[in-house]
Structures are given as C-alpha cells and as structure tokens.
C-alpha cells in the first residue's frame, strides 16, 4: 500500500454533500444500458433447458432432434463444459450448478442449452431435447434433510468438524462452533432463561433485472462478455477457469446492474453463453426469464435455529447459546457458520457458544443475500432477547444497552472489538421520538439490533486529468447504488476541485487491474480508499509540474484547495497554479497527468444498527400494516448522505418483505410453486410508510475519511424488529418467518 490509510479528523468540502449522481440522467431517460439492453451484430438467442425434477439422475440426453431443427446453431450439455476445475471444490460446484453433470439437484437445474436464430426457434429446440431422468426421492426442508432417513444428495459428503470422523455420508456438510467462556457455568448464574426455536423460510434477493449477458467467442480464442454482475473481474476469472481460457483474453464489461444484493456475485449462465458462442461461432445473448431467476439463481438459506439465553435479575446476560441450521442448496456452503459468527455479535458476553450446521437440500444453490445469514440469526437472538427483557421486567432498549458490546469487548466470533457503534445506535434509538409516540389498539412496537462485518479487498483505480482540467476516474467496483457519485465526491475532495469536474466510470476488465466484486458493503469503502490514494499520487505529479514551471524544488510546493502553492516568503511573487492551469501545460511539462492506485483496502470496520417499528395487526385476519419505521445506523462517515439513507431504507424494506410475506413455497413434488413476482411477494409502494433514518458517524480508524461500509447492515434487524412488534401487538411470540397472515392468525387462534 503506497499511502497511509489511517483516519485523520478533518473538515470536508465535497464529502458529505448531496449532488446529483453522474449516471443519473441516462437512468431517467432510458438510455442507461443494462444486461439485456446490449446487442451484437449476428447474435443468436441462447436458452437453457431446466430440470422439472427436484432430484433426478440424468441417464441420457439426446440432442439430435434439436440440432436438426432449422435455425439452431448450437446445442450444449455438460459434455461441452468439461471439468477443468482441478480439484477446486468451490469452482466445481459452480460448474455443476451452471450445467448439471450426473444429477439434477433441484427444480430448475440447467441440463442443456441451445443457441438459435431467434427466441421462437430456441424455445422449440428446447422441447426437442430428450432427457432420460431417473427421478430420485428429494428433500427440501432443512430439518428433514438432517434426519438419518433423508434422501442423500451427495454420498461423498461426510460431515466435517465433528470430533470423530463420521462413517456414514450425510446431508450435513459441516459443523462449526464459535464462542468462549463456559455456558454451563453461565446458565447456572442465571435467574431467568429463555429458550425458543425459530424457523425462517427461504427468500430471494428479488432484483428487478434478470440475469443477462451477451457472449462472443472468436476463433482465435479471444472473447468478449457483456454482463450484469456485481464483479466483472470475478466473472472473468470464473468464466476463464471454467472454459479453459486465458483470463486476459476474455474482456468482461459490466453493464449497468439492475440490482444484485449478493445474487450477482458468482456466475450462473455466463459460462453457458460463452460455451454456446464458442460452439456456434457467433455471439450469443442469454437472458433469464423471471421464472428462471427464481428457480435457478440466488436464494438465501432457509433456517432452523434454537436459542437459549440466561440473565440475572439485574439484567446482565450470563450465558447465550444458539444452534443454527442453514440450508445451502445442493452444494456445500458456509452460511450457518456466518450465522453462528454474527448471532450474538451485538453483545458483551462472558459465556457464549454457537454451533452451525450446513445442510444440503434439493433447492437452488444458496447465494449471498445482503449481510448473508445474519438476518435470520438476528431474528432468533433478538426475539429471545426481547422475551428475556420482558421476563426480567426491563425495558428492551435498556436491557440491550446494559449488555451491548463496546470497544474492548471480546466478540462472540472471537476477536476483541475496536471502536464500534452498537451502544451509540441504542442510545440514539432510546432518545428517538419514535420510541415515545403513542400506540393505538392492535398496535405493537418492536426494536432490534443488527451487526455486519463489512469487507475491504483488492481494489484498483485510475485517475486521469485531462488537458482541460477535468478528471476522469476509472474504478473497478461495480456501482450498485450510487457509488460513482460518492467516488467523484472523494476525488473532488482530495484534489480540492469541484464535484462537477470529475466524471467516474466503471472500467472493463481489460482497462484496469483486478478488483474484487462489489459485495460485503465494500464498494464505496474500498474504491474511495483507492481513489484517495490515486488522487494523492496525481497531486504529487501536479506539484512536480508546478515546481518545474516555477523551477523550484518540489518540496517547496504544497497542494491546497485545488492549487499548487509555492510555500515560503521567497516565493511571494509566484501566483498559485490551479489544477486547470497545470493540466493545460502538461504537454510541455512531461506529458499526461494521472494518478494510479492498487491496494488491498482491508480494515473495513464492523457496523451496527438499531431499528424501531410500529405494526398494526388485524386480529380477525392476521393482516399486518407497518405504521412507522426508523433506522439508526453507524456509517463511519457518510460520503453522500442521500445514498447512505437510500441504503438504510432499501435494506429495511427488504427486511420488511422477508419478515412479512416473502418465501419460497415448494410443492410435495419438490417443485417451486411461486417463481414469479405475483406470488413471491416483495413489498409494493403502498405496503410501506416513509422510512426514517438517522446516520451516526463513528469514524473507522482504518479509512482516511473514517468511512465504513453501509450497504448490508440495514437488512439485519428488520426480521426481529417486526417479529417483536407483531408479538407485542398480538400478545403471542412469533417464531416463524415470514409472519404471513395465515401464520399470524393461526398463532392468535392457538392462543385463544
């Protein structure tokens, strides 16, 4: 790392303002190009044939009839995507997910694909492909899948992480454990103990833009891929590895992305499109239908979680324990492990233990979804915490404040915390007017806390200064929600120029060094660090050019407010040189002026939030209405506060949908019953109130401006906050998410 990333307190000129985003006009005029908005001359239409069975052996695939259909240019199966993963298990799983090899493992699993001259021909061709399936027993429920009698998805899986190596294969790929202290002793000190089991159903990221790409492989082995993705460099690596290509010969351009939330972090159909293009010798456009998106991409884990928490009469938690079972789809994952790490992260605990089980089921491969695994764990823990506070007779906010983690606390996942924001968010919530607002009949208030790690990672940025003094910033992290605006602000801040002088773009994989994808709330955090570094490098060059112009040593030139200034009385007659003036002369002083940066932006700094919500329940129908919702979250430093608010509001809205109505519903046949926006019910505009936000700024010591990631934490508390509100409204503890009207009504009726 070529610069000092430490936080230094300073006042800002551009950072913290709210200008219009640079990509905005194209997005309000329909000009912005997303995955499906790009076309190439001579392109074919790619379509994927998917398994109608939840679990089936593929005996034989006969593609001969499809190949003979006029207009069909290529038909592929797993045979056209041979295994080149060389023992890399994670990549093998991605390959098998892209195209089933020996078994179809879920309803919607790809088994073959075609490229044809038009969509109609491609559709007809799919019907002509004959697949001989041997249908196998299936299992979709996470608890059922753990039973010894459950159908096995993969008989080569033996549970890892057990004391003794198991002799029999299992659907449980791994057991993990976190914690410290002695929970038996801790529970022994408790005056009150709450013990509950919880369940959450599987949800989908629900991005409005289906996966889409255009792939073009040339006969010389070079290729282009246009694709909607959260990480085009990662997609390049994946595709190159799976197709046996050299990474540098595959240029990947990220389109505008119509939402990802974790669902566009690894490849799904892109290697298939490339393989079709390679075989057909023509570009192939492959766009998933909404049905395919739900059946074969994305979803998060379904979970089953047991929680036990004990506390003394004075409100001190003495012990906490959770067992977390997370579905992974048909391939090994680390979803329960993340749940186990995050479950109790908000609290200061002397005795804590969490155990996670990763469980295979005949559902689509689980993908990351915004703070993956944390919302479900928080739902279980924060529900139990609320119940425990009630038993002790303490206010739930006070109870949490009393037990909140702080700097120096050993986290439940191991390390000791640096400066963190859980306490301040709780204090802010406690003092928020929302907490004191009166409630009506059938209304309940709930609150809950949430935690997320946040990531940094590999980042590379180019900052080029034009001869007219305008600045173009090329970043490699995909802009999922306004990061080009915030990065332009950062460049303007560092250079001391106007925001309008900077234009940020997302560069393709051939124009910039490797960047990790936009995940883990790292987009603005890491690229701003690289942008600051690149700007500082450019400033060094600018100072050098000014020094040359003045013929004085560079050490006598400082950079202030967008100008080079010769410091010291002896230079009193030298007028400051603006960036524009230095740029205009750059052809004579040494050529173009640029700043480059490549770094690993680690030290993202963990993030906490506290949410408050009011819910009204119709006791006769179980129908709910969110009356009021407030998000309090630490941003470190809000670079563009409007987009920070947007992240808070968006995460809360997704969490509200998850809490109340969103779920994957499988039939007895193991087929997904609701693969569409009609019956997979994400919140609509009339379902929600305005979502109030309060941004706290507790600087991250590992970022020059104190920035933390903000994108994910906001989805962690809502499930629990709403469950607590509903439980308070109806007087029955809700333990199953989503709290759909039939579930709420059944709970009320059972209590009567």
């Amino acid at each position, binding site marked *: 790392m070529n610069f000092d990333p430490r936080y230094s307190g300073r006042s800002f000129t551009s950072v913290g303002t709210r200008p*219009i985003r640079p990509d905005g006009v194209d997005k309000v005029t329909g000009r912005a190009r997303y995955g*499906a908005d790009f076309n190439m001359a001579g392109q074919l239409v790619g379509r994927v044939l998917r398994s109608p069975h939840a679990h089936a052996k593929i005996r034989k695939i006969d593609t001969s009839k499809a190949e003979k259909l006029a207009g069909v240019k290529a038909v592929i199966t797993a045979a056209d995507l041979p295994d080149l993963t060389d023992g890399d298990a994670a990549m093998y799983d991605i390959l098998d997910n892209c195209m089933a090899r020996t078994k179809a493992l879920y309803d919607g699993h790809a088994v073959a694909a075609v490229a044809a001259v038009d969509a109609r021909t491609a559709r007809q061709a799919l019907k002509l492909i004959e697949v001989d399936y041997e249908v196998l027993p299936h299992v979709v429920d996470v608890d059922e899948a753990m039973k010894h009698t459950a159908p096995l998805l993969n008989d080569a899986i033996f549970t890892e992480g057990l004391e003794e190596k198991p002799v029999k294969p299992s659907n449980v790929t791994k057991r993990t454990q976190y914690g410290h202290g002695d929970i038996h002793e801790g529970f022994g000190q408790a005056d009150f103990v709450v013990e509950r089991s919880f369940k959450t159903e599987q949800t989908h990221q629900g991005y409005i833009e289906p996966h889409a790409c255009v792939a073009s492989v040339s006969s010389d082995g070079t290729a282009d891929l246009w694709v909607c993705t959260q990480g085009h460099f990662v997609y390049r690596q994946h595709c190159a590895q799976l197709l046996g290509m050299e990474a540098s010969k595959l240029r990947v351009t990220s389109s505008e992305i*119509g939402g990802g939330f974790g669902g566009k972090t690894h490849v799904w159909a892109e290697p298939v499109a490339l393989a079709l293009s390679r075989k057909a010798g023509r570009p192939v456009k492959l766009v998933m239908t909404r049905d395919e998106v739900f059946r074969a991409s994305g979803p998060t884990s379904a979970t089953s979680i047991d929680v036990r928490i004990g506390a003394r009469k004075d409100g001190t938690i003495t012990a906490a324990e959770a067992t977390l079972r997370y579905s992974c789809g048909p391939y090994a994952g680390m979803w329960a492990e993340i749940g186990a790490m995050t479950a109790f992260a908000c609290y200061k605990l002397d005795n804590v233990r969490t155990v996670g089980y990763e469980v295979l089921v005949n559902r689509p491969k689980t993908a990351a979804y915004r703070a993956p695994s944390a919302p479900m764990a928080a739902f279980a823990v924060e529900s139990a915490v609320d119940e425990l506070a009630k038993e002790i007779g303490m206010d739930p906010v006070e109870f949490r404040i009393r037990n909140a983690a702080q700097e120096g606390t050993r986290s439940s996942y191991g390390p000791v915390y640096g400066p963190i924001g859980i306490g301040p968010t709780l204090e802010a919530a406690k003092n928020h007017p929302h907490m004191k607002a009166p409630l009506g009949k059938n209304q309940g208030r709930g609150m809950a806390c949430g935690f997320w790690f946040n990531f940094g990672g590999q980042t590379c940025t180019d900052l080029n200064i034009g001869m007219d003094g305008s600045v173009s910033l090329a970043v490699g992290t995909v802009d999922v929600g306004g990061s080009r605006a915030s990065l332009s602000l950062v460049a303007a801040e560092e250079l001391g120029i106007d925001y309008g002088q900077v234009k940020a773009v997302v560069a393709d994989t051939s124009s910039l060094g490797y960047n990790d994808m936009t995940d883990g709330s790292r987009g603005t955090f890491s690229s701003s660090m690289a942008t600051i570094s690149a700007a500082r490098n450019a400033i060094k060059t600018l100072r050098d050019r000014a020094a040359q112009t003045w013929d004085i040593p560079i050490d006598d030139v400082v950079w202030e407010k967008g100008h080079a200034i010769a410091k010291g009385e002896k230079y009193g007659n030298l007028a400051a040189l603006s960036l524009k003036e230095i740029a205009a002369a750059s052809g004579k002083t040494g050529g173009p002026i640029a700043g480059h940066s490549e770094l690993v932006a680690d030290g993202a700094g963990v993030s906490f939030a506290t949410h408050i919500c009011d819910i009204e329940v119709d006791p006769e129908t179980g129908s709910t209405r969110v009356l009021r919702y407030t998000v309090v979250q630490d941003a470190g430093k809000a670079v563009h506060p*409007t987009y920070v608010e947007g992240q808070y509001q968006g995460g809360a809205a997704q969490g509200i949908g998850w809490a109340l109505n969103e779920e994957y519903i499988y039939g007895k046949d193991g087929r997904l019953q609701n693969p569409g*926006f009609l019956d997979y019910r994400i919140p609509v*505009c*009339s379902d929600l109130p*305005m979502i109030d936000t309060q941004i706290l700024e507790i600087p991250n010591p590992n970022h020059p401006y104190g920035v933390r990631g903000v994108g994910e934490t906001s989805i962690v508390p809502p499930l629990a906050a709403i469950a607590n509100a509903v439980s308070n409204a109806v007087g029955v503890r809700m333990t199953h998410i989503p709290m759909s009207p039939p579930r709420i009504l059944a709970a009320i009726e059972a209590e009567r």
Partner: protein
Amino acid sequence: MAGVAVSTTINGDTVEYLCQPDETLLDVLRDRLGLTGAKEGCGTGDCGACSIILDDRLVCSCLVLGAEAEGRHVETIEGMAHGDSLHPLQQKFLEHAALQCGICTPGFLIAAKDLLAKNPDPTEEEIRFGLAGNLCRCTGYDKIVRAVQDAASVMKGA
C-alpha cells in the same frame, strides 16, 4: 408464421414495423425499434418495469401484442424529456436520489406521469397506491414518493 405489418405513432413519430403475431409490444420496442428504456422485469405484468402509455392509458407493454399498436399512440420513457430539458419528474427523481440501480426508474417515471396527469395533487396514499404496480427493490420507495410529491408541486406551480 406470417408477420403483421403495423403502422403506429411512438413518441409523436409515425413508425412502421413488421412483427410476429405473438410478439409483445415490449419485444417490438426493445428488439426491433431499439427503444430499450422499457425493461422486462417479469414479463407477466407484475413489476411495471415495462410501463408505457398507450392511447392515454398506462399499461405494461409486456401484456400488449405488437400487433395491437396499429393506429394507436405509444409513449415511452424515450419521449418523456423535451429536447434537452428533462420532465419535472425526471429532474426530481435525480434531485431526490429516487433511484439506486435504476432498472425500475423508466417504469416509475411513466407511471408517475400518468398518475399526475389524472390527479395533479395526490396525497401520499394516492401516490403509494397509484404506483403499487411498479416494483422497486432498492429504495424502499421513500425517496420515490418524495420525488413525485415534489414534482407535483412544481408542476402545479408551472
């Protein structure tokens, strides 16, 4: 399958095209006419990303056949700005950051334009129900509703 010859008006211009009888107007706009502002989020009328105005009525272009546009007037997002000046709704969406990923934005703008044409002074509730056919997964709708409120007050004053 014989193509259907269609003559229609799109954003004020006469347009002629040949389409298949089962082809949706959305596919015609996007694939034949290069008007990719309308997006396909679902293809079943559940997300509103393909919203257009057909003879003064807000519709999902994925639920209209290309052949049905014969002799009618189609308005798309590409026709919303006048020359280089944005429609007040477009301007307010920018100012309020009423978009994150932006994929739903063209549909929201068209739906909001239709809403304000029929109800120039809507309440928050009327805006929320009026835009319930347009899904947004990023914003939580807060800033969208505020942008529409602000645009309505600007348009009333104009």
